């Protein structure tokens, strides 16, 4: 199957690709699906960092495929375990192909969304608004991957919804914190381009601060006092 044919099939009917449960199919499909996912994610990263100059765009293009692939792959055993525990048994090879097919579909969507993201980021959008825009775009392009994996879990288990919700929550947390560790994708205009920032705090405290800053509240007292999800509080 050519890459073009596979691209068409991933866009039109990812479930058909995901249903190729045989091991031979996994070995055959994994390389082109991976290429689609990585290529699309890199383009998305390029668009996210483009507003901060070519160096930051390159950094973001290198890091984005990692953010795209790492959390779903790390959480793969958990998805399998959740499904088994909830009575919806799914073969490992099928889950793997479904994950890669979903990521390929999301990669293609990310590539298509790249110009849409690039446009507002290239017209001097305020930094905090740009970060929120990037996070929202990233979450949107990742939805097809989630839905493809969800549909790969067979119907029939009485607790299937619980398995899917548990998986989505775990994956969401993992993606959020991985993105936080790999930041910046959209760099601050006053800071020189950097590949990775120092590990400090966590994604939730930062998102809260960014949301307030986007609405014009730049009160430093809201800044995280120290690392940790629960340690942010307004200073007296």
């Amino acid at each position: 199957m050519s890459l073009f044919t596979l691209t068409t099939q991933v866009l039109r009917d990812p479930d058909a690709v995901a249903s190729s449960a045989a091991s031979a199919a996994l070995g055959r499909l994994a390389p082109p699906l991976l290429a689609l996912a990585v290529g699309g994610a890199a383009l998305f990263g390029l668009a996210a960092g483009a507003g901060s100059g070519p160096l930051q765009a390159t950094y973001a293009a290198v890091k984005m495929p990692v953010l795209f692939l790492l959390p779903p792959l790390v959480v793969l055993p958990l998805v399998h375990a959740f499904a088994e525990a909830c009575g919806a048994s799914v073969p490992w090879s099928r889950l793997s192909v479904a994950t890669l097919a979903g990521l390929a579909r999301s990669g293609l969507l990310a590539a298509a969304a790249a110009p849409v993201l690039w446009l507002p980021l290239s017209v001097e959008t305020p930094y905090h608004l740009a970060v929120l825009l990037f996070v929202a775009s990233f979450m949107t392009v990742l939805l097809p991957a989630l839905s493809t994996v969800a549909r790969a879990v067979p119907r029939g288990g009485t607790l299937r919804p619980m398995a899917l919700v548990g998986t989505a929550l775990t994956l969401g947390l993992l993606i959020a914190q991985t993105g936080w560790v790999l930041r910046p994708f959209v760099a601050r205009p006053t800071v020189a381009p950097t590949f990775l920032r120092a590990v400090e705090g966590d994604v939730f405290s930062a998102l809260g601060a960014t949301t307030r800053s986007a609405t014009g509240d730049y009160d430093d007292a809201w800044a995280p006092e120290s690392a940790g999800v629960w340690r942010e509080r307004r200073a007296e």
Partner: protein
Amino acid sequence: MTSSTLAISVATAWLAVGLVVGAALLRRGAGAPAALAAVVVWPAMVSLLASGPALRDIAGPYGAHITAAFTALRAAAADAALAGVLDPVAITAVEVALRQADLRLAAADRLLADPAVAADDGAGRLVSARAHAAEQIEATLRQLVTVRVQVGLVALAGDTGPVRAHLAELAARARALAEVA
């Protein structure tokens, strides 16, 4: 530990595991692209190490017919107008059962090729059982063509019931092949 050191350490460990998985896949006869993909996405590929050689790679006397029949059926199932008519899991179940029956035929053929076995008094029963199993495989393959005809009718009439029933019947027949053998 700085963020760069942390990132480099995690990436190195990830790729090191990936290299081990990729090398193991190469030793098991997987293609270079698959092994290369495994270096990056090894959690998704590690199941290839646990599985034995693919059934389709060890064909019996009906291997080519089975491959052709299921390639055609999957092509029909992939048609956008027929989405959801054929359950891919059910198709795979029938294929696996047929290929296993085909492998048992091949094993019987290898036994019968031995003159000592062929000359034994019980060889007649083995020949008869082999012929019966072959007949069942051929009947199942013919039914697969009928399923494709019914899929075509579904495209026009929209009633998926008969196709699902036929596929369920085929799955039952395929499961029975093991008992026949």
